[in-house]
């Protein structure tokens, strides 16, 4: 009977457990994590912050589904790994042996370094415990400062506003999330934030956080002002939690380097999710991403391989959907982007694959409420950013994922940018004459 040990309790670990159990009813599965509650949706924490859903609604599996997995859960951290001995040392100093190990420890928020960063009231958002703590603090606060970028910073600001706290969002540069968005897109998001009451401060940094009795009372800004606040919420990026793998001598770049079967450099040790750095054959390099659906798929592939069913991780096109300000925004494939002074590393819900540097042409259509930006080369669409109306989201995802040859419409796209949406939709309909757009398993038909 094979003993599978999973370190972590996010979607990668859960998906691995489900894949292992599906392949091997007799396998022994042990899950080690210092999070002991139900399996939950990490991206859903944003809606816990705003109060749109209660905490119990974040649970993503029923009790019956969890018990059917027959997992033994150990409440501890894995402190040390001996890959040759196939053993782990846990935080309670017990030794746990394994036949196959999955490291799915995710990524951790980076703490700020300005003076006062250790004061009570400087907060990060990683898991449900911190989200709960954040909500408790927000109930008692009048105003708060948010620093960082990406969707997490926006979620923090909107969570504060929704709970009656005045949020002050500090941007180091001129605009929001320049790593992924262009200047107009940033402006749209900033306008949406302003409508919800968030005060956006451009070219503003926290110099130090001021405290009284160990608690945050204000920040001093780079303009020399003092701004009263009870909370400083920080989302300046995340880093894969690689310490366990690194100290055990596994190959680690920025994340744990894994093969297309999610195998690490050590025998019988796998990694999946935000902690893994998987090779992308399309890009020709290993990339990090912090996308939920990618983590779920990597976990599933790792689980199948651990259970002895050889399976390859096919990186689907990097895609994320997020609500930025009041705009639903979908980012697909390579969309370019520039330096982002608000982020030290990648943020949650982002992919390094987006910032591809492939040469190409950028086309934009923008009307009163919606905006579409596509990035094309001679034959295909490389990436897209769709804000507002999402009618083109699915067609563009598939056109990009399948590298569909757009030669028949390329000239029209370039010459008539105002017709971008209808040109793309007509082209899409000509490729999919069936009534009912089928899911991804029909890719082959399109690509052929």
């Amino acid at each position, binding site marked *: 009977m094979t003993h599978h040990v999973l370190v972590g309790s996010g979607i990668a670990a859960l998906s691995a457990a489900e894949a292992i159990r599906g392949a091997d009813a007799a396998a022994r599965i042990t899950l080690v994590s210092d999070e002991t509650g139900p399996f939950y949706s990490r991206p859903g924490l944003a809606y816990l912050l705003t109060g749109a859903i209660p905490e119990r609604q974040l649970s993503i599996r029923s009790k019956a589904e969890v018990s059917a997995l027959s997992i033994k859960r150990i409440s501890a951290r894995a402190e040390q790994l001996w890959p040759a001995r196939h053993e782990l040392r846990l935080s309670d100093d017990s030794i746990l042996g394994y036949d196959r190990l999955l490291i799915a420890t995710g990524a951790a928020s980076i703490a700020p370094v300005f003076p006062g960063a250790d004061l009570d009231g400087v907060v990060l958002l990683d898991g449900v415990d911190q989200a709960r703590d954040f909500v408790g603090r927000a109930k008692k606060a009048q105003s708060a400062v948010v620093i960082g970028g990406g969707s997490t910073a926006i979620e923090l600001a909107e969570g504060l506003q929704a709970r009656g706290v005045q949020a002050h969002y500090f941007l180091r540069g001129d605009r929001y999330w320049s790593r992924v968005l262009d200047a107009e897109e940033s402006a749209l998001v900033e306008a949406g934030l302003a409508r919800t009451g968030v005060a956006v401060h451009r070219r503003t940094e926290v110099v130090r956080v001021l405290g009284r009795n160990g608690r945050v009372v204000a920040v001093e800004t780079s303009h020399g002002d003092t701004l009263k606040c009870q909370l400083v919420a920080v989302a300046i990026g995340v880093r894969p939690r690689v310490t366990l793998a690194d100290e055990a001598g596994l190959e680690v770049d920025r994340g744990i380097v894994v093969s297309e079967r999610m195998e690490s450099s050590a025998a019988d040790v796998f990694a999946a999710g935000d902690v893994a750095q998987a090779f992308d054959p399309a890009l020709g390099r290993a990339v990090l991403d912090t996308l939920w659906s990618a983590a779920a798929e990597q976990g599933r592939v790792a689980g199948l391989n651990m259970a002895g069913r050889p399976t390859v991780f096919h990186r689907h096109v990097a895609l994320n959907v997020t*609500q930025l300000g009041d705009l639903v925004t979908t980012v697909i494939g390579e969309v370019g982007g520039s330096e982002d002074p608000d982020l030290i590393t990648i943020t949650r819900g982002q992919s390094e694959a987006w910032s591809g540097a492939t040469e190409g042409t950028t086309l934009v259509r923008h009307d009163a409420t919606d905006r579409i930006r596509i990035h094309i080369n001679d034959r295909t669409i490389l990436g897209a950013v769709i804000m507002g109306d999402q009618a083109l989201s699915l067609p563009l995802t598939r056109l990009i994922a399948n590298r569909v040859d757009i030669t028949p419409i390329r000239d029209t796209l370039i010459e008539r940018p105002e017709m971008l949406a209808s040109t793309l939709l007509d082209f899409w309909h000509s490729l999919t004459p069936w009534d009912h757009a089928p899911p*991804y398993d029909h890719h082959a038909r399109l690509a052929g």
Partner: protein
Amino acid sequence: MPRKKHLPVDQERLALLRSSRVEPVPGRCVQCGLCSWNCPTGIDVRGFARRGLPIDDARCLKCGTCVARCPRAVLQFSPVPRAIA
């Protein structure tokens, strides 16, 4: 004598609802559960989305609450496919 009042009926909307159902777009859902939480008849919409299945539940009113509440535009009304002979 008071005139009899008729409720306005949007025939176009009714026809659309009759011939459509709510479907998840694959790859977009993060299982946050806002859809299920807001469903007036208590359907586990999130469970359908997880399996990539259309919301095929007799309780579905096709009211569109889940479609409107989803923060990631996962759900959409799609035509019911014609029966395959």
